[in-house]
């Protein structure tokens, strides 16, 4: 049964990926002509045409799209327009830094988000719940660039505790990881809280209290497990988001990851690199969603029944 469910979801993921690739190809072509950035502003038409031909941009859109699809099927997304490197290698170079940042931010987000969500849920509508809910709402609402700049001026310039930007030591990780974790902390805390409150009202919890079990035991042994399903969903989506590269955070902190690569590629209209990065982002999002769905099906057999 799980196999049938898996085949269904993988098929849907492949269709999504194909549609995504077409959209990326079309949208990058709307960004402008990279030749305008490559040659001098007063360059001759002849030179512009030569450059366009060298980059393989002289064919019709249909021809370019066919080339793109055929190459992509072989895992080749083409060379960067500006560097003699394949865009896939550029992505692979940037990926470790993004994974490191994503891992640390995810760990912070899960630990803090789940903890404060549980704490808030134990006494709904208390002052503690109000404070936690407000903080998590603020975390979801505040723009990342603003938090980043505040932290830079407070922690780096004011207190001199960490470097303003860059990479190389664990101190460089502190601010980007905190900034990246703040939004997921808010959303995970909110989902954990509401899911926990629902579960705490369930009959089995009343029974557990009637049997004389203490709240910490009930929460740890029974409630957390059942409240975990929506949290897993939310966590999966957030982690996928982190792994695809945080453009704003990586650019502000000059972190050498996929987000910064994407930002640079977009500024310079480097088609192959943009396509590779977006394809990666789509792939990760689809895979993470698939994993979340599968974990759902695994944790809750009723979900499998629905696909019949």
């Amino acid at each position, binding site marked *: 049964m799980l196999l049938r469910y898996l085949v269904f979801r993988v098929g849907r993921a492949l269709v999504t990926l194909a549609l995504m690739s077409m959209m990326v190809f079309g949208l990058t072509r709307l960004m402008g*002509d990279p030749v305008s950035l490559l040659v001098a502003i007063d360059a001759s038409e002849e030179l512009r045409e030569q450059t366009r031909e060298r980059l393989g941009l002289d064919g019709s859109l249909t021809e370019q799209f066919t080339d793109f699809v055929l190459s992509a099927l072989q895992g080749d997304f083409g060379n960067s327009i500006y560097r003699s*490197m394949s865009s896939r290698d550029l992505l692979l170079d940037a990926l470790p*830094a993004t994974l*490191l940042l994503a891992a640390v931010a995810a760990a912070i987000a899960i630990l803090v988000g789940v903890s404060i969500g549980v704490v808030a849920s134990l006494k709904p509508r208390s002052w503690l719940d109000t404070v936690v809910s407000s903080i998590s709402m603020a975390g979801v609402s505040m723009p990342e660039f603003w938090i980043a700049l505040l932290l*830079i001026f407070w922690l780096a310039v004011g207190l001199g505790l960490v470097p*303003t*930007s860059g990479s*190389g030591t664990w101190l460089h990780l502190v601010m980007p990881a905190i900034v990246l974790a703040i939004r997921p902390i808010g959303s995970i805390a909110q989902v954990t809280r509401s899911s926990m409150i629902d579960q705490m009202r369930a009959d089995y919890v009343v029974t557990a209290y009637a049997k004389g079990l203490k709240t910490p035991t009930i929460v740890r042994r029974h409630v957390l497990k059942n409240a975990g399903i929506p949290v897993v969903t939310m966590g999966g989506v957030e982690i996928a988001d982190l792994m695809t590269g945080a453009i704003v955070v990586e650019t502000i902190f000059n972190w*050498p990851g996929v987000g910064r690569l994407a930002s640079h590629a977009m500024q310079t209209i480097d088609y192959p690199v943009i396509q590779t990065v977006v394809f990666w982002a789509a792939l990760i999002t689809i895979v993470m969603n698939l994993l979340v769905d599968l974990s759902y099906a695994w944790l809750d057999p009723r979900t499998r029944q629905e696909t019949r």
Partner: protein
Amino acid sequence: MTKLNCLVRGSLFAVGLMSAVAMDAGVKAYAQGDNASSIIISTYRQVAHLDRSQIGGSEILVNGLMDPLIRLDAKGEIYPGLVDSWDQVDENKTRLTLRQDVTFSDGEKFNAEALKINLDRRLEVTTSSNLKSVTGAEVVDEYTLDLLHKPQPQLGLLSELGIFIFPYSPRQIMEDPQSLETAPISTGPYKVVSYESGRELLLEARDDYWGANVEGWGVPSIKNVTVRFGVDPGVGLAALQAGEVDMFHELTPENAALVGDDMRVIRPSPEVFFMRFGLKDEFTSDLRVREAINLAIDRVALNGPFLGMGEPATQLWHSQIAGWADRGPLPEADLERARELIKEAGADGTEMQMVFSTSYKAGIGLMSQAVAAMIEDIGIKVKMTDLDGVRFREYIRETDNPAPLTTLAFGFDGPEVTGFVTSRISCGAKLSTYCNAEVDRHLDLARKAVSAAERKTILQSMMDEIDRDKGVIPLISPPLIWGKSADLQVTPSFGGLMEWKYWTLDR
């Protein structure tokens, strides 16, 4: 173990694995310019790679690696560089005699063959559009080379050599040209230690620099230089204030105002912002309207967005560039006369589109808004269109049907101003919407003029014609500001050029 426990443990394992993979990729230790012999320079500019033959605009920070063939100062004076002397053989050939003591950092000799290999490569690289005159080279003997070129006045040709051609090791070009993008080998006082693509460049002063004991060259005072690219301007300022970096290139005027005089170096700008008219438009084709717009502009007030650090412009190039002359007091705004002219031309209440791009040049967005407000004061409604950088570059080439008003920039790399001016204002030029036979005649004369004094007279006469016709309106030369740490003493030299390798830096 419950399923949830299994999932949580699995997730933790995955997170740990991702961290291990990422840590393994490793990143180098965080360097700090904490002693007198090393500095860290950061810049907001993005550099895709280090091959100057293929990149433009961001090369200022890799210049330490290279020496120029011809040295030019901002006043238009020309000095020997790696080329010791030159002699025009005929209108298509100039004989270059090279210095005989120059070596690349890999030990290769700089000679006529090495220069020919470099020139041949430049001519093959299709994006090297800055080479407008050079067509080839022939080796005469070990240190003599005949440069083949289109007919071109000497100043233009030598400027092209001095600004756009920097030789790389012939061995590197022949054996491993791709490495030019990450570790170019040249004749300059520094060599590349490492380069992290688009992010960080480490340079080290050469112990065997050929120019160490040569008068007029010498070794830089700083041994190690770290250049960080693509740093957000606000974060760059914070890094400067936190003492993490020694210099930041370039500070925005807003950021420069946040630091003291001891933390900035203001250099002559290589640019002048100006207004171009769409002369097919019913109203801007009328001289009275152009005159009125000129009278509406308060150039001193335009310096506001630049916090007074710019230079109001009376001509199309900066006061530090050859050909500039004092043209008396700044033209003053006269709103009353401007309004009269607008009424006479029947343009009162007309809406005009003004095209500009905030991402084209720093500060040009704010300046354009100020200009628009001044024009609205005389009874014209201005509809502003802010294009992104790429579309703006495409737009200003489309000269058939331009917007009535456009703000853009003249940029100058050196003393040869006629090339830049020609492409922007002469009849039928790629970026020009203006056409005045008298202006073109002056430009032609200026190109051919031999002496600097003669060129200056001709160029000023051309400016008189432009002023009379109000074909384009020079607005302001923005400041170019480097941020620096307060304890770093900077003494720019060699005609005030921006090249930091010529600066004396003391802590």
